[in-house]
C-alpha cells in the first residue's frame, strides 16, 4: 500500500482559493509558518493580521470582523482555539453563530509536543457547543476540499486540519462532501467508522482482516457535527457482529460517542467498541509510539476485530509493519513541532 505524499497541501491551496475572495481574512497567533499561512500572509498582506500570543483577544477580534461582513480564518494549533479561549469562542462567536473559521492544527497525538499541544478532547468540547460545525480531514484531498465546505456554512466552523506531509488517499476529483461519509468497503460482519488519520492507519490492517474472511463495512467520517448522515445509520443497522469506531481523540465525546448516540436512539443493539484515547492524557513522543502505547494503531484494530468475532485472525507483526512513518524533522514539516 502506498499513497502519493503531498507536501503542505493547505499552503498553496489556500492561497489560490483566496484569490477571488477579498472578504477572506487570516488571523494567526504566532504560529503562522507552523500553520502553513506564511506565504498567504506574504501574498495578501493587507488582509492578514498577526494577533500574537493572545488568543482570547484573537477570537473577539474575529467576531468583530465577521459582524462587519468579513470571513476570518483563524490559523493556530487546535489547543489554542478551543482550550485556552473557550469562553470567548462560545460568547463572541458560537452564540451569535458568526461565520468564523477555526483552522486547528496538530490533531490528537500527531505532535510530539506533549499534553500542552495535543487536542484529545476538542471534538467533545466543540460538539457540545450549539451552532458549531465540526469537520476533520483525513488526507490531502480533504485538506484542500474542506475549505469549500466551511466556506459554504454561514456559521462557525472548526476544522481539524492536517499539515506537512499528507497522504492522498482519495482522488483529487473526489472532494470531501459535507455530512456524508466515504464508503471505503461494504460488508455485513462489522461496521467500522474511522476519522482523520485513523482511516489510513485502519487501511494498513483492513486488507489483512478481509483476507481472513471478515466482512467489514468501512466508513470514513469527516463531518463530526452535525452527525446525521444516513450512510452512518445504514451501516450501523446492517452488521451482525460489532460496530467499531477508531478516532485520534478521546473515546469520550468524539466519533465513538456520536455513534453510540445514533445507535441508542435507533435501537441498534450491536456491541460497540471504541478505539481512541482511553480517557487519559498523552505525553511528548512520536505519533507511532503514542499510537502503539495508547492502542490507536492497526494492531489495536486487529485485536478489536478478533474480540468481536471471537477468533484469532493470525495476523503477524511483520504483515502489519508496512506503514508510513514520517520523520518529524523532515523537510516538509514547518518546524519540529
Amino acid at each position, binding site marked *: 500500500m502506498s499513497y502519493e505524499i503531498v507536501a503542505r497541501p493547505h499552503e498553496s491551496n489556500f492561497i489560490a482559493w483566496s484569490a477571488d475572495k477579498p472578504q477572506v481574512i487570516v488571523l494567526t497567533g504566532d504560529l503562522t509558518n507552523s500553520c502553513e499561512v506564511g506565504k498567504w500572509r506574504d501574498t495578501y498582506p493587507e488582509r492578514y493580521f498577526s494577533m500574537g500570543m493572545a488568543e482570547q483577544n484573537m477570537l473577539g477580534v474575529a467576531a468583530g*470582523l465577521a459582524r462587519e461582513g468579513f470571513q476570518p480564518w483563524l490559523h493556530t494549533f487546535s489547543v489554542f482555539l478551543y482550550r485556552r479561549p473557550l469562553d470567548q469562542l462560545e460568547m463572541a462567536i458560537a452564540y451569535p453563530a458568526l461565520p468564523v473559521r477555526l483552522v486547528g492544527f496538530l490533531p490528537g497525538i500527531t505532535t510530539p509536543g506533549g499534553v500542552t499541544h495535543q487536542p484529545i478532547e476538542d471534538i467533545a468540547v466543540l460538539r457540545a457547543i450549539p451552532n458549531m460545525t465540526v469537520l476533520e480531514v483525513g488526507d490531502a484531498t480533504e485538506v484542500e476540499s474542506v475549505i469549500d465546505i466551511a466556506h459554504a456554512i454561514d456559521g462557525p466552523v472548526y476544522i481539524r486540519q492536517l499539515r506537512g506531509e499528507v497522504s492522498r488517499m482519495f482522488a483529487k476529483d473526489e472532494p470531501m462532501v459535507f455530512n456524508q461519509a466515504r464508503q471505503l468497503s461494504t460488508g455485513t460482519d462489522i461496521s467500522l467508522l474511522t476519522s482523520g488519520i485513523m482511516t489510513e492507519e485502519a487501511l494498513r490492517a483492513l486488507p489483512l482482516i478481509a483476507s481472513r474472511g471478515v466482512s467489514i463495512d468501512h466508513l470514513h467520517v469527516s463531518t463530526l457535527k452535525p452527525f446525521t448522515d444516513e450512510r452512518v445509520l445504514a451501516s450501523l443497522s446492517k452488521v451482525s457482529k460489532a460496530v467499531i469506531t477508531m478516532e485520534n481523540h478521546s473515546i469520550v465525546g468524539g466519533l465513538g460517542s456520536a455513534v453510540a448516540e445514533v445507535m441508542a436512539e435507533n435501537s441498534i443493539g450491536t456491541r460497540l467498541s471504541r478505539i481512541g484515547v482511553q480517557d487519559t492524557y498523552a505525553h511528548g513522543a512520536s505519533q507511532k509510539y503514542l499510537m502503539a502505547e495508547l492502542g490507536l494503531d492497526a494492531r489495536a484494530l486487529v485485536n478489536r476485530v478478533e474480540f468481536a468475532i471471537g477468533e484469532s485472525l493470525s495476523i503477524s507483526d511483520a504483515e502489519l509493519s508496512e506503514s508510513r512513518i514520517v520523520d518529524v524533522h523532515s523537510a516538509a514539516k514547518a518546524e519540529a513541532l
Partner: protein
Amino acid sequence: MAITRDDVDIQKIESIATGIRRRVLEHTLKNNGGYMSQACSAAEILGSVYGGMLDLGVLANPMQPSPFMGTPGIGGVNRTTGGIFHGEPSANRDRFIVSPAHYALVVYTALIETGRLAEGALDQFNKDGSTVEMIGAEHSPGFESTTGSLSQALSQGIGLSLARRMKGETGRNWVFMSDGEFQEGQTWEALQVATHYKLDTLRIIVDVNQTQCDGPMEDVLSIEPLADKVRAFGWDVHHVDGHDIDQIVSAGTKASSKPLAILCYTDPARGLPILNERYPVLHYLRFKSEQERNQYEAAYEEMTK
C-alpha cells in the same frame, strides 16, 4: 464627522444624567431591586455617550423593544442587534459597544432619556420573553454584542475598527467599560493589539467606580495605577472626574493619533448618598427592610422635587 467640544450641549447631558438616576431608582423601588450604584456612577458617562459626544445615527421616533425571537443559529437565524437603537450605521458615524452588560438598566434608561427607546420599555425589564434583559445581550436595546462575560467587548471593538478601516470608514468605535474588567487578562491583550495596529478610531470610556461585586477593588484586586498602565500600553489616556461632564466631553472630543481611553473616576453613590450606608457592597441593591425601602422612597421624592 468627528464631534467637537463646542458641538456638545453640557446642560442637556446634565439633564439626561439626572433622568437616568431618577428612572433607575424608580425602577429599583418598583421591583425591589436593581443595579443602582451603576446608575449613580455612570449617569454622566452614558449621558455624554447618548447626549451628543458620540455621532450616533438619528432615530425618527423612540422604538419599542422587540420580543425575544430565539437564539441565533446557523444561516443568520435570529441574527439581530440592539445596535439598531443607535440608528443606521454609516461610514462616517460612530459605533458604540457596551462591555459591562450588567449596566443594562442604565443603558436602557439612557436610551429612553434620549428618545431612542420607548417610554414604558422598562415595564418589560427582566420579564420572561422580553429582550429588555437584566444583563443585556445582543438582542437587547443598545447592545451590539453579548458581553455579560466581562472584558470581551474591547476585542470585538478592535475587530470592528479593523473591519471599518479596511472598508474605508472613518467613524469612531467606542467601547464602554467598567474598571473591574481591567482585572481580566483579555483586556490587556486587547489594549496591546489596539496599539500595535494604531487604531486611532478606537476609544474606550471607562467607569472607574472602584467597586466590584465583592467590595472595594483595592481590597479585592487593585488595578492602580490604571492610567499609567494603560498609557504604558501606548494609549492616549485621559483621567477625568466622571461626574464632570465638561471634563468627559473635552477628553472625548479630542483628536488623537492613538487609541484613546477616558478613565472616568466616579462615585458609586453620586446623587443618592444613602447608598453609602451599604458601602462597600454596592453591586446590586435589594432592600433589606421596609424601613430601608422607605428611606429610598424619600430619596426618590427628593430627586423628583
